[in-house]
Structures are given as C-alpha cells and as structure tokens.
C-alpha cells in the first residue's frame, strides 16, 4: 500500500499498543497535540490517556520514569521530541538505563524504547539540528537504531520492543514526509544486521538514517560515470554490523562513509577505523568520510545546505578514491 514514513511509524506504534498491553507511549505532546511531528496523531483517541501519556516538559523526569516503568514490568515507548532535548535526559539514559543490568549483576534489565527525531535540513538552526547518534553508539548497554526506510519505520519498533534491553530509535526529521510503497505483509526488521540497499562492485558507500537517500542519489550519479557503487545502510548504529561492512569493502576495495554528524568524533570515524582494522590489506585507497562541517548548524538555507553532506560531496569523495 502507499504510505509515508510518518504513517508507517504510526502503524508500528498502533500495532505495538494493540499487541502488548504492557506497551504505552509517553512524551511531550504525544497525545492531544498528536505528536510534534504528528507521528502519534489519533492514538490518544484510540488508546486513551493512560496509554498515550502527555508529559510535562521534564525530559529527565519522564525518561527516567520510562526506565523505572520498564523495571516495573511495563514496555514503555518514550518519545523525546528531538535529540537536542535528549541532552537533558542523558543522565537517566547513560547512568541508569545503560548500567542497571550490569550494576545489578544481571538482576534488572530495562526494556525501554526511546524514540527521538534527529538531524538537520529544515532550517531550525543550532539548537534543533543536532545529529548525536555517535554519542549514543559509544555507550555499552544500549542499542541504537536508525530506520532510514518506510519498511524499517514500520518494522523496527516491534523488534526494538522485543529487545530486553534499552533501545534508542533515531528518526531523521526529513524522513517523515517521505512517501512510498509498503508491503502489507512487511515483516519485523532484523535489527542485528546492516542492509545492502544497492549492490555494487566498484566502491562501498556506507550511510544511515538521513544520509541513506543521499548515498543512493550519489550512487545513481556515479553510475552515469560508469562507477558501480554498493550502498550499505548501517541500520543499527550500536552494535555495528561490522561483518557486513567489512565483507562489502573487501569486495569493493574502497569505502566512503556518509554521516550527518560533525566529522570529528563522528560515527563515521568508528566505521572508518573498523574497516582499517579489518580490511586494511584489501583497501585500494584510504577510507573517506563525508560528514557535516564542524559548525553549529546555521539557519540560513544556503549555509545549512553547505554545512550538511550533499550528493555532490559524496560523488566527489568517491571519485577521489579513484574508483
């Protein structure tokens, strides 16, 4: 059927709320407002205020409450409007959600799912445009996933809820309006594996979330120049599916990692390091990175566009590798 990323995510939420009564959605304006990006629109009417809970503006408080509710046997889906505001909840996520199982010697696991919008591209300036996926991917004890397609928007939530441990879901803000087809029998997403979105033989473009579309666009342009690029969607940012990445690069001998995070300390750096560590002697050129410029994202459209990774940047980086 024809749908959008937003609707696919909403269907996933509805499905989860229907299938498991321990599941509930909690966050700022998820109910009466319908969600700041209209993802949960209609769910309050369908499931009631107990299970679709509007919270006060207290990121640390309600994220921590979600963690506590998970300890108490519920399966909370906590929505933080955007990753920018998740900075206010990091103590709960890193010091509690990620550590409780280990600190308790295996006694208390935390089956919470925390959703948040991420990324730039809508001229929202420096306090609303972060891509901090790299931070979350650094923390043992949490799983981080980034649905980049409509299928994954529909299929990742349930697998995330089946995970006995905390899962953070990053939804890139520019994806919500993306339209496409979704098979009625679309299966739950395997969140242990990266996905090869486009097979190719000359080089590997590695992307995730908001940059997948750009990588695929670049692959199209490269084909016009006779370069056959493979495109890998990381899909799960922690734990990284190193095997799939390395297997691809071992075939193509060249890799460009595309990441909307700031270049220094980006997730792309980790991917680059892992490729070097595991496929050094198969590389025909150093792993390249196409990331955001090291600048708080500016408001002006032309500056914001210049700050983010764009198709021409990816194409140029690929060609520099001499593929």
């Amino acid at each position: 059927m024809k749908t959008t990323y937003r609707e696919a995510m909403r269907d996933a939420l509805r499905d989860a709320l229907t299938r498991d009564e321990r599941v509930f959605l909690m966050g700022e304006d998820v109910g009466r407002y319908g969600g700041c990006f209209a993802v949960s629109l209609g769910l309050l009417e369908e499931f009631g205020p107990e299970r679709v809970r509007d919270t006060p503006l207290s990121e640390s408080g309600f994220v921590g409450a979600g963690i506590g509710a998970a300890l108490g046997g519920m399966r909370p889906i906590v929505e933080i409007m955007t990753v920018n505001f998740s900075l206010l909840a990091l103590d709960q996520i890193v010091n509690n959600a990620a550590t409780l199982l280990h600190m308790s010697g295996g006694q208390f696991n935390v089956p919470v799912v925390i959703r948040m919008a991420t990324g730039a591209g809508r001229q929202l300036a420096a306090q609303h445009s972060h891509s901090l996926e790299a931070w979350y991917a650094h923390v043992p004890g949490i799983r981080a996933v980034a649905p980049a397609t409509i299928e994954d928007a529909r299929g990742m939530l349930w697998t995330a809820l089946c995970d006995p441990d905390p899962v953070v879901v990053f939804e890139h803000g520019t994806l919500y309006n993306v339209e496409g087809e979704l098979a009625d029998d679309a299966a739950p997403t395997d969140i242990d594996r990266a996905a090869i979105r486009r097979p190719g033989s000359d080089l590997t473009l590695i992307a995730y979330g908001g940059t997948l579309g750009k990588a695929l666009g670049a692959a199209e342009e490269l084909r016009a120049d006779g370069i056959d690029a493979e495109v890998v969607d990381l899909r799960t940012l922690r734990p990284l599916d190193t095997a799939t990445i390395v297997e691809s690069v071992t075939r193509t001998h060249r890799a460009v990692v595309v990441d909307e995070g700031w270049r220094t300390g980006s997730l792309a750096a980790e991917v680059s390091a892992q490729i070097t560590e595991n496929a050094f002697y198969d590389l025909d050129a150093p792993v390249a990175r196409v990331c955001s410029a090291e600048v708080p994202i500016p408001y002006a459209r032309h500056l914001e566009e210049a700050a983010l990774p764009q198709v021409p940047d990816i194409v140029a980086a690929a060609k520099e590798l001499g593929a």
Partner: protein
Amino acid sequence: MTVERDRGLHLLRELVRIRRFEERCVELYSATEIRGFLHLYIGEEAVAVGVMDALGPDDAIVATYRDHGHALARGVPAEAVMAEMLGKVEGTSRGRGGSMHLFDRAAHFYGGNAIVGGGLPLAGGLALADMMQHRPHVTACFFGEGAVAEGEFHETMNLAALWHLPVLFCCENNLYAMGTALERSEAVTDLAMRAAGSGMPAWPIDGLDVLAVADAADRAVLHVRGGGGPVFLELRTYRFRAHSMYDPERYRSKDEVEAWRMRDPVGLLTERLRADGLLADEDLAAIEDETAAEIDAAVEAARAGTLEPVEDLTRFVTSEAPA
C-alpha cells in the same frame, strides 16, 4: 492607576508595532521567505512591552524562541530582526540564528533560547556577573509556563534566591505549552504561589493589560535593583495564534480563543486611552501609518540584504583574533 498621554501613546505604539510585525511575518512565512520554526507573539505583546518599559538601558534580557516581541520592544531594529529571518548578513545574527535566535549586544539582548528552560541558568549567571562587579543592573528572564516543569527552572530559582541574584523572572503564562494545558503539566497551577514557596517575592499580573504589567514590573525592578534579590512575576496572558506555523490547534476550542480575544491587549489599551480622552482617531491612524512604514522599510531592507558567502560558513564557531 493614571497614565500620561505620551507614555500611553508610546506603549500603544509598541504594542501595535509588534502586532503588525508578527502579522507581516505570517505573510512572509506563507511566501516561504521566512523558513524554519516561527513562533508568534500575537496576544502576548503587553508582557514584553510592559516589562521592557520598566528596564534601563544597561539591564540584560534573556528570551525564548518566541522572541520577536521582546527584541522589538527592547529596541532591536525591526530591519535587523527581519533580515535575520530572511537569513541575511544584515540580520541580528548574520542569518545564522533565524527567528528563534535573535541577539543584540548593544541592547544587552542575550538571545532567544530555543531550549525550554535553557535560558534560565544563563540569566542567573548574567545577574551573578553584575552582582560580583557591583553593577546595579537587572537581568530580565522571559520563559513560558511550560518551562516551570523543567529542572533548569528549579535549579535557577533556588540559586537566584539563595544568592540574592538580581534576576527578574518573567513567566509568560499563556496556559499552554504547545498542546499541553497548564493543568496537565503542573500539579500546582498557581505558579506565583508556587514560586513564592521557593523563597522570593512572586505575584500574578493581568498580562493582557500593559499598564498593569508595566506597573508591576516597575515595582519588581525597584526591588531587584535595590538588592532585594530576585522577583518572580506570573504574567497571565494568552497566545491568540497557533504555537508555531505547524500547529492545527486540536487542543483548544475556537470559543476559548475567541473569548480571550475579547481582551486583546491592543484593544484594551486603545479603549483605555480613548476613555481617558488621551487618544484621538488621528493618533491611532498615525501610529498605524508609522508602523506600516517602519515594517515596509524593514522588509525592503531585509530583501535587499546580502547573503553570507558560503566560504564563511565556519566563521564564529570560535572567536576571531581581534584584527
């Protein structure tokens, strides 16, 4: 309380300036000349105008993402504000901040902060700097009632009361935080009473009546400047328009909005001045004409403005060595 003609006309002019400026912003947003998030101050003008009226030129202001009214009332040039929203170098932040991030050093305007509650600690620090440098200045910090649930509000209120910091806390209680009504975000909805409990004078004011606001602000500023420590003003107002341009307002009824519009701050002052025989039709006409001219000029100047060269993208990430 009585009001002289000049002061009355001045306050009315400021209210009208903000009202018309915001109305023009709506047009420019529809025309996609303004992008990103746009939060209008329509209905709340009396708060900023009344408080600014009580401040001196060296006092500091910290505002939120809903900051056009505060900037204009503080004397930030309309064309600089407009140019900012059009992403031009002539803007208050050279187009890097946009609508939510207006700054002006000359006006001691420390910015629109787009993290709810995020400006409060800064205000405490600005006041601390004044206190430590024995400067008799006041820092006015504006924030919505939704911010009262945030930990940063609590921490700053306590620090200010504990250290007797010269902060004027201006809580703009417009009853909603996006779609979340006050009673669904605060266990105690009498915000002034609650604030008094944290150790500083606090009282509620009719935030639609600019004279009431100005009068309360005068008394509060006197107290703060005199070394009496912080004061909390609960300015009871209402947002006549949607939260932002994306808000279908499912959370409140048209009737409720209409009822509040009956007490339009511009209308209230107009009637009051008319009743006191201080406002003639031609006075009002003059104000409207001057305002229209000012805004037309601002829009023209902004449109004629220049775009920051893309090569300068990473300027202002760190300070530039003084030439």
